[in-house]
């Protein structure tokens, strides 16, 4: 069989399968712990000057690790609650209890109240910016000798953070913001990003995990082969009994470029007729 006839067969098959297959092909192979291990075993690229190269688009599953779509034998697709799926992406199992900050006793009632009224109190459900650290690791990193830029294609919008790494101090006089003011430094091969000057409109995680404007977030990025080990620690001594360490994440290099986030439009919460919890894992 010639290459030309093979190509026609492939084209005919693609046409018969319609647009579903084209988009499915764009997904690439699914991540498995074994593949992740192989990516981490690759050499760690470095920039001129020796710093690890963090540049790239990084798959971090956007906080939806519990979504493990399956393609069925007849071409059908199952997206949620599909039963056991071999080779699912790494991450917590569906329904796994997330870690939660430890609050000082006098603030537990406030956390419970915010959580109980979550559909009214969680601003992330109203399409507002999600804040740090709840937004998680960036989807793309642009790095040069003076700064790194984080880009996010979040469900609530497209966001960016500019992080000086050349010794510049935190900026003064800026209004408090959702993503705060960040500076970065290198501790050996780990990029450490310290962010302050947050407003208090966001939560650290789901379920009423509020914070104050005194929040400081420390994020660590360590490139290992074609992966990045990421972890964030939130310090808010006014309300937290101890610093809260979010669950560690492993990002991997992807050739799927970020896209502008589709418009976020708050029209769901008006439909809630009772106090049901609207889960928003990140």
């Amino acid at each position: 069989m010639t290459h030309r006839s093979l190509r026609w067969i492939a084209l005919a098959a693609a046409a018969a399968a319609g647009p579903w297959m084209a988009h499915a092909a764009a997904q690439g192979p699914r991540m498995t712990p074994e593949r992740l291990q192989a990516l981490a075993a690759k050499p760690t690229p470095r920039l001129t000057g020796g710093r690890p190269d963090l540049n790239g688009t990084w798959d971090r599953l956007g906080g939806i690790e519990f979504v493990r779509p399956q393609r069925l034998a007849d071409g059908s697709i199952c997206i949620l609650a599909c039963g056991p799926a071999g080779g699912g992406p790494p991450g917590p199992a569906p329904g796994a209890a997330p870690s939660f900050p430890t609050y000082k006793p006098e603030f537990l009632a406030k956390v419970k109240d915010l959580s109980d009224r979550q559909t009214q109190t969680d601003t992330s459900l109203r399409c507002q910016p999600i804040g740090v650290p709840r937004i998680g690791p960036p989807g793309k990193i642009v790095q040069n000798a003076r700064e790194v830029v984080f880009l996010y294609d979040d469900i609530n919008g497209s966001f960016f953070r500019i992080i000086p790494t050349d010794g510049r101090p935190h900026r003064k006089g800026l209004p408090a913001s959702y993503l705060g003011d960040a500076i970065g430094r290198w501790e050996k091969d780990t990029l450490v990003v310290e962010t302050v000057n947050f407003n208090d409109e966001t939560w650290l995680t789901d379920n009423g995990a509020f914070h104050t404007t005194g929040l400081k977030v420390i994020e660590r990025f360590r490139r290992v082969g074609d992966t990045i080990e990421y972890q964030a620690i939130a310090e808010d001594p006014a309300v937290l009994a101890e610093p809260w360490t979010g669950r560690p994440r492993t990002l991997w290099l992807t050739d799927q470029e970020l896209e502008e986030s589709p418009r976020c439009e708050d029209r769901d919460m008006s439909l809630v007729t009772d106090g049901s919890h609207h889960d928003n894992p990140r």
Partner: protein
Amino acid sequence: MRDRFRSALFAVTTLLTALLTAAAVSAHHSVAGQFDTSKSLTLTGVISRVEWINPHIYLHMDVKDQRGDVTTWTLASLPTAMLRRAGLSRESIQGQPGELITVAANPARDETRNLAWITKMTYADGRAIFLTGQ
């Protein structure tokens, strides 16, 4: 004494873990506050418009009754990122122009609207998208 303390600690930890896990699992059924998951309806029609927006997409389906009158239903579904992860796009979920698609859905608790949450879509060629479980 130490063994009794350990047993008590184990019991409390187990109970806490069970409660937290149950809370996390039940939290995934958040759609229940807006849509009546105990009721199911089936609609067949043409998807005339797709709102590819977050946090949930909306499909507008023109459903024709036996007299030929058309009712447009608004059908909510998952966030765009979840659909993209499953290989779906605004175009592919709409189907071919004029294609009759059957959806299984949970009606809105506010029954004044022609609004529902899609659980399954079946296309003319028989393939299906199970949006919230098989």
